[in-house]
């Protein structure tokens, strides 16, 4: 896995993001290879979510400099749907609710738009049901309107269902572990782990080590003040963080 040619990697190269004129992300560079798990940690307000939203092309985070590529494709030139077709997926911290649109209908449409195999109705329904079951969600969620009235935890699990059904090359998961009980956390980690084993590269944004215990990262990055201040392979940084907080990791007071 680790020796995949560079053109298949997700590469952020000196990425800057301004929001309302203010520099929130200040020159982030990192490379995620297919099948790798990278964790991005750091206190609230350090630019992690801004980085994720800018990467996906959110219109309020479109004041960007630098480069973000999947292989040779420059993502920053593309609309969100084109970025999705280039293989990027963002599991959102606060997924929008879309009344009147059943989850299954939406996912079939999205699969079609992404050029994935057009499963027959029955095949798709079976797959959908089994994916929901894997995340501990009732089969009835297929017919429920997208995220409408879902609890916080249900939204997160539904995001993983979508992630698995949309089969991206790279996924950014923004606090996918928040609001989950331990059973759900294990299920979510397993669901993501299977994708990684199949070659999807993921960037996990999280505050806690507990997800990483179930989803061992190849690399942990600590973000502070819009920059990546420390990067280290394996769990070392996450462990230090859990024990001593961000000061212990960064060696100075962290800034937002």
């Amino acid at each position, binding site marked *: 896995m680790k020796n995949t040619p560079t053109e298949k990697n997700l590469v952020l190269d000196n990425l800057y993001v301004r929001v309302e004129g203010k520099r929130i992300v200040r020159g982030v560079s990192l490379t995620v290879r297919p099948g790798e798990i990278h964790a991005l940690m750091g206190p609230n307000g350090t630019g992690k979510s801004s980085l994720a939203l800018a990467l996906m092309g959110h219109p309020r985070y479109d004041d960007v400099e630098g480069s973000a590529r999947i292989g040779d494709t420059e993502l920053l030139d593309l609309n*969100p749907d084109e970025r999705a077709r280039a293989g990027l*997926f963002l599991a*959102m911290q606060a997924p*929008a609710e879309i009344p*009147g*649109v059943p989850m299954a209908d*939406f996912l079939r449409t999205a699969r079609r738009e*992404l050029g994935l195999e057009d499963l027959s109705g029955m095949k798709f329904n079976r797959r959908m049901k089994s994916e929901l079951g894997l995340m501990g969600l009732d089969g009835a969620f297929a017919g429920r309107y997208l995220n409408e009235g879902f609890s916080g935890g249900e939204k997160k699990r539904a995001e993983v269902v979508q992630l698995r059904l949309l089969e991206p090359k790279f996924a950014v998961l923004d606090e996918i572990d928040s609001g989950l009980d331990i059973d759900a956390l294990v299920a979510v980690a397993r669901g993501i782990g299977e994708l990684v084993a199949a070659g999807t590269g993921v960037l996990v944004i999280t505050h806690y080590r507990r997800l990483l215990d179930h989803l061992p990262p190849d690399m942990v990055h600590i973000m502070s003040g819009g920059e990546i201040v420390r990067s280290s392979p394996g769990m070392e940084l996450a462990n230090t963080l859990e024990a001593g907080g961000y000061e212990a990791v960064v060696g100075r007071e962290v800034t937002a």
Partner: protein
Amino acid sequence: MDNLPNTGRPGAGTLPDTAPPPGLGDESRDEYRYGFHDPEEYVYRAPRGLTKEIVEEISRRKGEPAWMLEKRLEGLRLFQRKPLPRWGADLSDIDFDRIHYYIKPSEGEERSWDDVPANIKKTFDRLGIPEAEKKWLAGVGAQYESETVYHNLKREWVEKGVVFTDMDTALRERPEIVKQFFGTIIPAGDNKFAALNTAVWSGGSFVYVPAGVTVDIPLQAYFRINARDMGQFERTMIIGGPGATLHYVEGCTAPTYSSDSLHAAVVEVIALPGSRVRYTTIQNWSHNVYNLVTKRAAAYEGATVEWVDGNLGSKVTMKYPSVYLLGRGAHAEVLSVAMANDGQYIDAGAKAVHAAPDTTSSVVSKSISKGTGRAGYRGLVQVEEGATGAKAAVRCDALIMGEKARSDTYPYMDVREEESNIEHEATVSRVGEEQLFYLTSRGLSEEEAALMIVNGFIEPIVKELPMEYAVELNRLIEMEMEGSVG
């Protein structure tokens, strides 16, 4: 149209006595040959503007009984006296003197398919409507075709006494029923446009389902709103006998081709005790039409009336389907969806008048405004003294797309009985950046995402429609949504 802010009751409380059938004896044979049956031979187009002479001429050419001419003339007098409504859309641009109030087509006068504007043809093509139907919709086909539609359906139900025909035929063949109910739910003086319709009405549907009969398939008048000839001032009357059940569906499956700019229909529904009447319509007018329609129902003891009303297109639409709940336990249900695109003003709503105990009503209204469109909900819930145990629930949701679109809500409540329960809930939402971003981030184009949000928004209404209408409505919305973002 309706005189909505004026909450007075119409003359719907009691039904007039059945009158003996008025024969055609007072018409001369000479007049009769100008009758309804010979449009190819007898072309007629009334001169522009509206006079007593024109009204008399319409009635004479149709070979109508004297009492109908009286109604027409009364309508004319009231039309001339009544002011335009001072609320809602600005109607001052309507030039009543330029309008042809009655046009009877014939082959000689019809347009050829080649004359139909390209954008209308394109619409037909995109809707996948067969050639023959396209011609009919465009006002090219003969008016007779409408009766053919009715006749096919008529055969199926005639044995049970069901009458489903056009109003002109009904007036000739069932004058006693027409006379009994005509103008009883919507009196000529109700509002300026009801008065106008009474004066110059032509065409429209007539449905009568006798006591205890259940018509279990929708009675459909698909292709009959044809602005070129009879569509402008149609008059529809639907009567559910005691314990009867019927579902009347009316729709234009394409923007109605309209050479004139005013559509002022009147629809009267009479739901006798224990009956169940559902009226469904999806209308999509071309963007130069003033669509000012008065729709009202009377529901007697234990009866249920349901209006399902979809409004697209038009320059201005003012339409507030109403139900007067006149008997104990009567129930009203209004579901409406409106979409106002660039330059359009759609003022729609509903009215429920609880005039008897234990009556219930439910109104669900959804409006979408987009571009420079303006959509409004205007509704009235009235509970009269003595209507104990009345329950009313109103829910109106507005979806606004873009910075310039506008939505207004005017919910009027007039409650004169303490022992009643009224609920009102209104939401306004903008198609949000967050929703669009969410959907596009999963691979949908921005246009597709916006369409999905809009379709989701109207889903509660769409699921109440017969399948083919649901499909049509979704297609029409899709067409309205084209080029909406970017």
